[in-house]
């Protein structure tokens, strides 16, 4: 997955950067060139990129937890294997993204420290529980669908290592989407109990899904510079509209009910109407006060701590850290 609704810093001061270099840098981006790690870049560009790629990496690794919960109890051997493969992909995405972020000069150790202390964020949706196996089906289909919209857009961005990691990630996401859709269809076309199960999961997850792309353009911080530097490729609301356009008809097709009485497409404008998500709740949860924040971070911390002796046993004395190249 994942990585939607990034939180950017508000200030974008580039005064100190060499004006001529900045001009050349922006011209390259304008011309569709990719920026590489050893190229000159404004300090603010580097800072926002690290923040964004790091958040994306954390989202992949934390996102593995709610789904991973159901691996041992997925119905049947084949579904256990499929869910395990999907979760392993997500952890792999985190590895690829941490490597891309590292090319900008922040070490992986620092990123993990900042994740656990809460200094760095991750996608808000993973602070909600996956109560049944059906929840993982809804996540794999619809949260991954949202992630694909976001990741395909960002893979056309300006930073080379991030774009290349995203291209690799997107090819794996197509399996997640198919697998998720298959599971949802299986339940939705099954017995009344199975249908009820997937309906409940959809009802639970609709709010996180609507939160996924981040706060409405009406209230989110002004990010013209993020767009100009091709760090952000589409506005939050535009991506949400695209998601609704692609997936609401598919959900309705299965006779499932979306828990929003306002949801409808305005045929005149081509835009979807919906109840504005509760952005106060979004802020509250992303800042730590959600149903699963503490568990997610505590589990991540435990994993780092329990693995430490293994990592230390394998460490060589002459190791030397060099920022990865590309």
């Amino acid at each position: 997955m994942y990585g939607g609704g990034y939180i950017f810093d508000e200030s974008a001061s580039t005064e100190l950067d060499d004006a001529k270099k900045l001009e050349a840098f922006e011209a390259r981006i304008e011309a569709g060139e990719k920026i590489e790690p050893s190229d000159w870049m404004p300090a603010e560009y580097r800072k926002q990129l690290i923040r964004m790629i790091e958040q994306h990496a954390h989202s992949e690794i934390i996102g593995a937890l709610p789904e991973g919960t159901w691996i041992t109890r997925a119905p049947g051997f084949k579904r256990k294997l499929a869910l395990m493969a999907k979760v392993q992909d997500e952890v792999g995405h985190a590895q690829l993204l941490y490597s891309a972020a590292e090319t900008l000069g922040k070490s992986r150790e620092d990123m993990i420290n900042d994740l656990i202390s809460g200094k760095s964020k991750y996608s808000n949706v993973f602070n909600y529980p996956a109560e049944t196996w059906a929840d993982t089906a809804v996540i794999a289909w619809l949260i991954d669908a949202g992630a694909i919209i976001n990741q395909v857009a960002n893979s056309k961005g300006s930073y080379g290592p991030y774009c290349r990691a995203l291209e690799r990630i997107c090819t794996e996401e197509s399996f997640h989407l198919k697998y998720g859709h298959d599971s949802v269809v299986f339940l939705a076309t099954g017995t009344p109990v199975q249908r009820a199960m997937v309906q409940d999961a959809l009802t639970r997850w609709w709010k996180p899904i609507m939160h996924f792309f981040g706060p409405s353009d009406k209230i989110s911080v002004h990010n013209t510079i993020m767009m100009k530097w091709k760090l952000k490729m589409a506005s939050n609301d535009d991506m949400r509209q695209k998601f609704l356009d692609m997936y609401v008809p598919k959900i309705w097709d299965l006779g499932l009910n979306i828990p929003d009485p306002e949801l409808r497409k305005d045929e005149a404008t081509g835009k979807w109407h919906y109840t504005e998500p509760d952005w106060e709740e979004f802020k509250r949860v992303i800042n730590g006060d959600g149903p699963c924040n503490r568990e997610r971070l505590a589990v991540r911390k435990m994993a780092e701590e329990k693995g430490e002796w293994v990592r230390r046993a394998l460490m060589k004395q002459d190791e030397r850290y060099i920022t990865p190249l590309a």
Partner: protein
Amino acid sequence: MKENSTIKSLDPRITRADIPKDGQLSIDIKPLDQWQTYEVFHQEKKGDHHSHVGSLHAPNPEMAFLMAKEQYARRGRCVNIWVVKTSDIFTTNFEDEDMYTTNDDKMYREAGGYKVMDRINKYKKEHKKKEAVK
């Protein structure tokens, strides 16, 4: 006592891990804890060049191969992988990229630096004229 002081999760494995409910959420992982990095090069099919695909963390080449397979060869084609410690790679600077540009004063080493058709045509024209005079 234990019942209330540890995390109760939907995941029984997490519940069994007895993680304290209000433990300190901070950690201080030291530099190099996650080892050094390797750069990964893969070959999609025999006969192709190996090309760079990214980096990874590993304590030794054996682990680097394992991680490379999982991270860069999980999907798509791959027949061979190289891993090289990042610290063993030497690179030139993009700021010096002009040293690789082909400049016009070295046209003697380019195929395009040799234009013979004009001379041939001129020769043929003159030759024909001479023939005609005879």
